[in-house]
C-alpha cells in the first residue's frame, strides 16, 4: 500500500518536473523562433535623423572645412580608403556627382579618409581625378559608426543626417535620395 502511494507521488512529481523543464525549453525555442538579428541596427538610428556630428578640420589642400558652414546645402560625406575595392570602383561616380554638384550648387561632397595614408590618397586623386575637400581624422569614423567601406552619408541643408549608404553609391542614387527628401 505504501509503495503504491510513493509510486503515485513519484509519478505526479515527475509530471510536474517534466512539465517545468518542458516549459523552460519551450521558452527557449520560442525565443529562437522570433529572435534573430533585426534588419535595422538600432545603432543606425542614432545617426539617422539626428544632427550631423561635427565635421571640422583642415583638408589635404590645407583649407579649413567646417560642415556647419554648409547649412543650406546638402552635404555628401563619403568614407573611403584606397585599399578598399568598392571605394575605387565608386570613385568615378563621385567625380561625376561632384561635377554636377558644383554646377548646380545644391550639394557639397567631402571625403573622409579611413585608415589610409595621406600620400596614398593624394596619389590616388591625382591619378583618378576629383577635387573636393578630403579630411583625415580617425575619430570621425567612430562618430559616424562606420562599420565597413565604403559608406556615404547624406546631410540635409538643415544639418540632419538623412541617409546612410553602406556600399558603393552612384551619382544617380545620391541625387534621387536628395530629391526624395526635398520633394515630399
Amino acid at each position, binding site marked *: 500500500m505504501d509503495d503504491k502511494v510513493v509510486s503515485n507521488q513519484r509519478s505526479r512529481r515527475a509530471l510536474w518536473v*517534466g512539465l517545468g523543464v518542458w516549459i523552460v525549453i519551450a521558452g527557449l525555442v520560442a525565443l*529562437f523562433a522570433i*529572435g*534573430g*538579428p533585426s534588419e535595422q541596427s538600432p545603432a543606425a538610428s542614432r545617426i539617422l535623423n539626428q544632427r550631423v556630428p561635427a565635421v571640422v578640420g583642415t583638408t589635404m589642400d590645407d583649407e579649413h572645412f567646417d560642415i556647419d558652414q554648409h547649412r543650406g546645402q546638402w552635404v555628401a560625406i563619403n568614407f573611403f580608403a584606397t585599399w578598399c575595392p568598392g571605394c575605387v570602383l565608386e570613385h568615378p561616380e563621385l567625380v561625376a556627382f561632384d561635377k554636377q554638384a558644383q554646377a548646380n550648387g545644391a550639394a557639397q561632397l567631402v571625403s573622409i579618409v579611413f585608415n589610409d*595614408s595621406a600620400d596614398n590618397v593624394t596619389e590616388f586623386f591625382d591619378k583618378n581625378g576629383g577635387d573636393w575637400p578630403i579630411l583625415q581624422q580617425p575619430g570621425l569614423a567612430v562618430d559616424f559608426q562606420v562599420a565597413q567601406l565604403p559608406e556615404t552619408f547624406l546631410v540635409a541643408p538643415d544639418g540632419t543626417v538623412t541617409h546612410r549608404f553602406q556600399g558603393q553609391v552612384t551619382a544617380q542614387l545620391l541625387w534621387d535620395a536628395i530629391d526624395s527628401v526635398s520633394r515630399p
Partner: protein
Amino acid sequence: MNPVLGFGFIVLGLTASVLGAVGGAWALLSGRQEMLRTIRQWTWLVVGAAVGAFVVMELALFQRDYTVGYVSKVGSPHTPALFNFAALWSSLEGSILLWTLVLAMYLAAMVVKFAKRADDPLFGWALVVMLTVTAFFFALMTGPANPFVAVEVPIGFEGPGPNPLLQNHLLMAFHPPMLYLGYVGFTVPFSFAIAALICGRMGEGWLVATRRWTVAAWGFLSFGIILGAWWSYEVLGWGGYWAWDPVENASLLPWLTGTAYIHSVMVQERRGLLRVWNLSLLSATFALTILGTFLTRSGVIESVHAFADGAVGPWLLVFFAVVVTVSIALIVWRADELASPGALGSPVSREASFLANNLLFGAMAFVVLLGTVFPLLAEAYDGTRLTIGRPYFDSLAGPLGLTLLFLMAVAPIMPWGRASTEVLSKRLFVPAIAGVAVMALALVIGARGVSSVLGFGLAGFAGSSALRQLVLSVRRHRLWGLTGRTNGGMVVHLGLIVLAAGLVAAEGYRSDQSFTLELGQSVMVEGRTLTYLEAGIEETERTVRTFAAIEIDGTSIYHPSATAFRASGQVVPTPSVKSTITSDLYLVLLQVPDRDSDTIQLRAVVRPLVSWLWGGGVIMALGTMLAVIPSRRKRHKQKDDQQASIDPAPDPDPEPDPEPDAGAEAEPTVEPADG
C-alpha cells in the same frame, strides 16, 4: 544527369527510411517478428541511398558539373583535388549530405553489430528511432537544403570555389567529418535509450550494449573540437584558439553533457542509480547536437563561421522541439520504473563524486548556453543588443574548470560505497605532494597569479592521481593494464590534464604586442629578437599574397602574410607560428607594405605551452582508443556473454570495472609498527 541521379538517391533514401520507421513501429506494436527482418533489409536501401548520393556529389564536384546547384556554389576549376573533395561539406547543403552519410554508416554498423540480437524488440525500436532521424535529414535534403537542385549556367561559367578561409589549410578537410562522427555517433545510444523507455526495460542492459559506441562518439567529438581549435589558431589569425564563438559553443554543449553522461553511466551500471540523470543527459546530448546544428545554420546568432542560411532553421528548430518533447514525455511516463533500486550510501563515495561531476558539467553547460543565447534574450526584452564575449565565459568557466580538475584527482581513487577518510588520505597523499611540488616549480620558473599557480598545482595533483591508477594497473596486467574503459579513461584524463595545464599557461601568461617596423628594423619580444628582413608579393591565379620575412633570433625566418582572393576581394591574414614545446611565438601581419614604404605593422603574441594543448588532444585520442579495446578480464568473459540478452536486469553490469587499487591490496604490505 547528375542532379536527377543525386536527387533520385535522396528520394529513395527518404522513402526507405520513412517506410522503415513506420513499418518497423507497426511491426513492433503488432508483434510481427517477420516484418522486422524486412525492415532491416530496407535499412540497407537507406544506407545505399546515402552512399549513392554522396558518390554522385563527389563525382559532380570532380567533373565540375555546374548543372548541379551545389557545385555551382562551391566548385571551382582552380581548387586543388583534396580541397575539392572537402568542398562537399564546405557549405550548408553539402554538410547535411555528409551528416546523412555518417548517419547511414552508423545505421549499417548497428545492423551488423547487433545482428544476433535482431529479434529483440529493444533493438527493433532503436532501429525505428534511427530511421526516423535519418528520414528527417533526407527530408531536409528534399526541401530547404537540396544540394542537387538543377541550375542553368552560362557557358564558360566558373564556380567561385569554397570559402577562402576553408582553403587555407589541409586540416579543414578533417575537422567537420570528425565532428560529425561525434555528433551523429550519439544518435545510436540515444536510439537505444528511447527504445528502452518505450519497451519499459529500464535495466542497465542497453547501457552496457552501447557503451563502446558512446565512448567512440565522445572521442570523435573531442578530437573534432580540438582540431577546430587548432585550425582557428593556425589559420584564422586572430591570435587564439577558442573564442567562445556561438558555433564553437554549439559544439561544446553536447560535449559537456556527453562527458557527464559517460561518467554517470558508470554509476548506473554498477549500482543502478542515477537512471533519470543518465536518460536526461543522453537526451540532452542528442538534442543539443540538433540545437547546435540549428544555431550554426539558421543565422539566428551571427558568427564568424556560421553558414548563414535561414531556410533550414525552422525545420531544425521544430525537430529539436519534437526530440525534447518526446524525451521528456517518455521519461515522465516511465518515471515510476526509473526509481533506483538502491540508495547513494555516503557523500564520500565514487557515486557521489560522479553526481558532483554531473552538477559541475551541468553548470558549465548552463553557462555556455546562457552566454550564447543571452543576446537574443536581451534583445527580446528591451531591444538592446549586447555582446557576450570571451571575458564572460572565461571568468565563469575558469573556476568551474579548476573545480573539475580537483574532482579529477579525487574521484578515480574513490572506492564505491562508503569511503573512509583513511583510505582517501592514503591514496591521495602522494598525488598531493606532487601537486604542491608542481606549484613550487611553477613559482620557481617565475609564474605568478593565484588562479594560474593553483591551476598548475591541481593539474599536478590530478595528473599523479591518474598516473597512480595506471601504474597499479600496469604492474598487475603488464601492457594489458592500459586497455579497458577504466585504464583508457585514465589515459584520457592525463591528456585532458596536459591540455588544461597548457590552457592555464597560455591564457595566464600571454603577451600581445604590436609594432610598426621599418625594413631591417629589429625589435625585442619576450627575450627574442625579431628582425624585419624583407617583404614580398606572391601571385597565383586565385590569390595575391603579400608576406613579410621576419627573422627570429637570427636563426629561422617566418613569413606572416595577408592573402587576398581575387574573386571575392576578401583579405585573409595568414599567421606564422613558431612552436616549441615551451612556448609559441605567433606573428600576424596587421598592415602590409604599400607603394610608398616598406613599413609593416606586426603583431606578436607569445603564449607559453600552447603545444601542450595539441599534445594533450593526441593523448586523449590515444586514451579513447585504449578505452574501447576490451581489457584482459573482459576478453575472457566476452565469449560467455555471446548469447546473453540485451538487458541482464535486475542485476546491473555482469562485468564490473576493476576495483581501483585491486592490485595494491592483493599484495601484502608491510607497515612499520608505529609512525
